[in-house]
């Protein structure tokens, strides 16, 4: 891919401005910079590699179409991540997987106890996310990876707010047990 040398040192906001003026090479530099982060988020949400790449591509194309709407209030990467997460949720819902959201009361994968694993000092986030149910993965990723509030996640999933909060809490408990086996703070989060 052709990358103009001057773009490499340019700030995201400069590239966004150039992209909004129709400079596709400048936008290409943004894709190069943030593509991995967006694809990584989608994989953590539960997408397989091909689906994650597919959705991430669509997200960047949508971002280019809407780039004039990005006002720079937050990071460009966060903005694209939110677009990608919402696109993935749409696809997820189309595939009739929302019924998974309804079983918030079922323990499909019990949270490991703090300290479980003994010598394992650190399990990285990608592995830890795999211990969550699909609904928990999506809800936790939307709130902590894409930066959506619980209410925004509930709207994106077309699911009651309480259900989302329940999935997030259960997902957090599992992650806490995996990632902070010495016993992380058990206080719950009001992520609104």
């Amino acid at each position, binding site marked *: *891919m052709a990358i103009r040398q001057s773009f490499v040192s340019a700030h995201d906001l400069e590239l966004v401005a150039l992209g909004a003026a129709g400079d*596709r090479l400048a*936008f*290409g530099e943004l*894709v*190069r910079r943030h*593509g*991995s*982060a967006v*694809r*990584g*988020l989608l994989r*953590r949400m539960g997408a397989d590699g091909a689906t994650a*790449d597919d959705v*991430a*591509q669509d997200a*960047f*194309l949508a971002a*280019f179409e809407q780039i004039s709407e990005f006002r720079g209030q937050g990071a460009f990467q966060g903005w694209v991540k939110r677009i990608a997460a919402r696109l993935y949720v749409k696809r997820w819902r189309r595939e009739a997987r929302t019924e998974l959201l309804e079983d918030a009361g079922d323990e499909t994968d019990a949270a490991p106890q703090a300290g479980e694993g003994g010598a394992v000092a650190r399990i990285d*986030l990608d592995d830890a996310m795999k211990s969550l149910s699909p609904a928990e993965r999506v809800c936790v*990723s939307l709130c*902590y*990876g894409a930066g959506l509030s619980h209410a925004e996640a509930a709207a994106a999933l077309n699911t009651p707010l309480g259900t989302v909060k329940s999935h997030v809490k259960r997902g*957090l408990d599992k*992650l*806490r047990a995996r*990632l*902070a086996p010495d016993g*992380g*703070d058990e*206080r*719950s*989060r*009001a*992520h609104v």
Partner: protein
Amino acid sequence: MSDGFEFGLERMFAESPAMGDAELFAARVMDKLDRGWTARRFVIGAMGVAGGMVGAYQVISTDAVGHLQALGVQSNAYLNQHLAEVIPTGLAPSGIGLDLQTLMMIGALAIAAAGFGLVRLIREI
């Protein structure tokens, strides 16, 4: 209230190592973007050709050229007649030259101006 673990979790989500095929992914996105633009240009061009053909058909089928010619002759006669009444005899021009060629030139300029405006509008969109 967010605790330390949750802040740490957000940080872990934010830290995403660059993937080995990051360049390839970016190239694919740009390829899709280019194809989208090509398709859009093709559609706009096709719509323009279709619109032009419909317009040309309308012009031919309604004998618009004949009407324009008649209009040019009539307006020329009308203007000459009324100018002769207003302007003193010594100063009156023999005619202001609003013949068919002038009218067509004005029309062509108007069409060209509309074309520039349309191109500008499409670029803005």
